[in-house]
């Protein structure tokens, strides 16, 4: 199943918003070997109306490096024709985009699994930390890492 020539993933860590469509189009446009495109968009929830924003702190340099390492694993493990990962930092309001993974492949299982794998390891290994800001104006504190995320990452 491994790709003889693994693709080079596109990785971006930025405060600006992203356009999921445009990124997906870049991986498919003008190509005739892409059979499956899986796009994962992670959005900021308001947690039942509690939150005014999430603030994402990151480790500049290591964030890009670690996402690149995870993406290289994905590219060598699945026969992808393209992989794009964008992770935002800074203050993000409910409904706003946080993270984007687009995986393209000739085959649907490869695209699904690679996107799923990327998200599990972005959650547990990419150096980002979320702080909750409440509608009441207070800063609620840091989001705790979930055991479920660790369990998910151990599937691979």
């Amino acid at each position: 199943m491994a790709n003889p020539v693994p693709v080079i993933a596109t990785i971006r860590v930025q405060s600006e918003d992203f356009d999921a469509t445009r990124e997906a189009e870049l991986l498919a446009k003008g190509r005739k070997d892409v059979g499956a495109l899986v796009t994962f968009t992670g959005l900021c929830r308001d947690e039942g109306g509690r939150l005014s924003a999430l603030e994402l702190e990151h480790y500049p340099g290591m964030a890009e490096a670690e996402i690149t390492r995870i993406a290289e694993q994905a590219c060598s493990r699945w026969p992808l024709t393209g992989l794009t990962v964008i992770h935002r930092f800074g203050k993000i309001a409910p409904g706003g985009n946080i993270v984007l993974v687009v995986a393209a492949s000739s085959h649907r299982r490869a695209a699904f699994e690679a996107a799923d794998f990327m998200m599990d390891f972005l959650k547990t290994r990419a150096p980002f930390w979320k702080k909750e800001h409440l509608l009441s104006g207070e800063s609620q504190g840091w989001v705790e890492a979930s055991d479920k995320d660790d369990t998910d990452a151990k599937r691979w």
Partner: protein
Amino acid sequence: MKIRYFAWVREKVGVDKETLDLPGSVTSVTHLIEFLKARDERYATAFEEQDAIRVALDQMHVEHDEPLGNVQEVAFFPPMTGG
């Protein structure tokens, strides 16, 4: 050696980065944590639940027993919550 702190570790320590001269006896991450905890109450509090703290050497995740070797940058932070 350049040391960086993130998220609540940063808040508890009170700085986001600093450069420290380490004694020769500090040769692993565990030694470095012991050294920091002995410096000041803020570090002692930040590293109270020592096992919960993650560490990176030159921007790579490592375990606490990792030797420091010739690394330029050490970072301490809580478990990641991105994605």
